[in-house]
């Protein structure tokens, strides 16, 4: 009885004092997100689904998406964690400027990013010229896919982790330093573990964005099967009917959807085990 009473109180406290009528737009918002996916599932041709998703083209696109998405996420972690630390530990003014710079790729249409990267790494640019002299060509390669994905995904990781780092503050780092810990040990044993929720959220968002990336990849990396044709590009190609049916496109979309949900569930399970 005591337990029940406690449970009720906990639920009441959790509910707070949000106006009840807000439930209406909340449900509409949820419907906006879920209904299109439902419509997609309704169009699946179950008879040909298995052959569609196991076709060499589909598996090649899925494999390329997972590999490039994973590599892009790794790139984002290596570059984004230091960038998030830099922003979180700078003055309010500097942090505001840096945060604005990081946010720009978020508000830009990814296609614009693709064009911009083409201008930077293309043969006509200074950088592209230098790279070409060394025999390195980036546009329309798998490397370009990773670069394009990193470009659009990096802000998600940086912003999520930076918020977490800033909220934790430097008090625990000071305590660790007082106990004699050096900077690397503090980073590994105190700062990053404390920011783990932000880091995990950032990695999930980053990977999800990388897998779904289309616009920048299309312009900067192209649509070569097995080299730069990731799942979104394969789906786009399928919808345009170049050699395959629309059913294939729907099947591929379902495959991407299932993959994304699978990754999310995996991370959730891992976080549930982790201490909080």
């Amino acid at each position, binding site marked *: 009885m005591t337990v029940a009473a406690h449970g009720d109180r906990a639920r009441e406290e959790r509910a707070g004092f949000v106006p009840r009528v807000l439930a209406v737009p909340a449900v509409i918002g949820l419907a906006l997100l879920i209904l299109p996916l439902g419509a997609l599932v309704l169009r699946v041709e179950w008879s040909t689904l298995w052959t569609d998703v196991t076709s060499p083209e589909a598996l090649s696109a899925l494999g390329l998406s997972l590999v490039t998405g994973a590599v892009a996420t790794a790139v984002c972690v290596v570059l984004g964690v230091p960038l998030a630390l830099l922003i979180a530990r700078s003055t309010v003014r500097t942090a505001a400027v840096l945060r604005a710079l990081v946010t720009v790729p978020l508000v830009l249409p990814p296609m614009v990013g693709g064009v911009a990267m083409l201008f930077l790494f293309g043969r006509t640019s200074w950088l592209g010229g230098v790279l070409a002299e060394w025999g390195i060509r980036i546009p329309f390669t798998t490397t370009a896919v990773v670069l394009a994905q990193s470009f659009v995904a990096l802000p998600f990781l940086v912003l999520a982790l930076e918020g977490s780092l800033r909220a934790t503050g430097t*008090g*625990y780092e*000071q*305590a*660790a*330093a*007082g*106990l*004699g*810990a*050096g*900077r690397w*040990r503090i980073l590994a*044993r*105190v700062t990053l*573990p*404390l920011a*783990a929720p932000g880091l995990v959220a950032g990695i999930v968002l980053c990977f999800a964005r990388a897998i779904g990336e289309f616009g920048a990849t299309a312009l900067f990396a192209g649509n070569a099967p097995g080299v730069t044709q990731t799942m979104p590009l394969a789906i786009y190609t399928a919808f345009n009917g170049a050699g395959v049916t629309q059913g294939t496109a729907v099947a591929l979309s379902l495959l991407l959807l299932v993959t994304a949900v699978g990754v999310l569930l995996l991370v959730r399970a891992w976080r549930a085990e982790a*201490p909080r």
Partner: protein
Amino acid sequence: MSPTPDGEGQAAVPAAGGLDARVRVHRGGFALDAALQVPAGEVVALMGPSGAGKSTLLGVLAGMTGFDEGHVRLHGRTLDERAPGASRGRRTPPSSRGVVLLGQDPRLFPHLSARDNVAFGLHVHGATKSAATAGAVEWLRRVGLEDLGGRRPAQLSGGQQQRVALARALATQPAALLLDEPLTSLDTETAGDVRALLHQQLAATRTTAVVATHDAVDAVALASRLVVLEDGRVTQTGPVRDVLATPATRFAAAVAGLNRVVGTTDASSKNWLGPGAVTWRSGGLELPGPEGVRPGTSSWAAVFRPGDVRIVDGSPHGAGEWTARIVRLEQTPAGVRVRTADPDVAVDVAAERAARFAARETITLRLDPADVRFVAAGGDVLIDSPGDANPPLPPG
């Protein structure tokens, strides 16, 4: 293991041992200009009103806060040094000072168990994983938490968290331990327990320590010496009980729970003192002056307990009686404290007697001159000035 008797003359600490700091910090309108000496293995209490600069000073000692001029030396090693006007100086980072700062918030790492929190410091100092864990278990036993090593900080009470933080700090055998109001956020009983533990462990480990506190009880229980810091300056230092018995400032008197009334000495006009005697006067209060003092030479403060003042009937007559106006009545656990003006004197009376009085009323007070101690009140005069390290401040 009581601290060595600490005479007035030997206050200056030899540079070889202990903590020796002299720093100036300017931050906007605030200026800290203070010297602090802690003999090796001893505990010094640091008291002062809020905003006096206690935390700033501890931050400087811990290496978290920079300063504009001065030095910090610890056991013969110069940690920081900066010459006047120099754009930069020597500064030792917090991680290589051997100074642990323990504040009101114990700052236990929330993602580690109590045991791993203590082991963290040991591991940093080169212990293997198993040795660090064994050391942590032993330290948790010493602070009475042997059964709770597996818990996370969030699963511990405030007092238990402070115990773990103390174990974590002492386990690293710090060259100096700085405690910034470590008991403030604890309830009275828990604070008493942790205070006793602190005293016991600081004495057992002979740790050189500074305790900033608002509570005279902490100073008496933990420290051998007391430093009073007011408005960024040291106003009094000395053995704890000496400072509390002869407070040099209103703040120190308030901490000690004493009345401190500044007055002037004068040739007596009262026949009850006899010819040639000197009286001390402040507002309506007149007392036989301090012995051997010539009239008008300096100002003196009369120090006496609120409980030694009596409320009497009738008009004032004779030694130590005066008319006072009640400013307000303050309820205290023991009764009522009556605040009077001109001079500002607090009088403690039993609750049932206080019902007779009201604010703005006029009463007659009596104070036995035998209950009064006179303290030189030269304004900025330092009692027990620690030699050259802290020269008397210029007048004005």
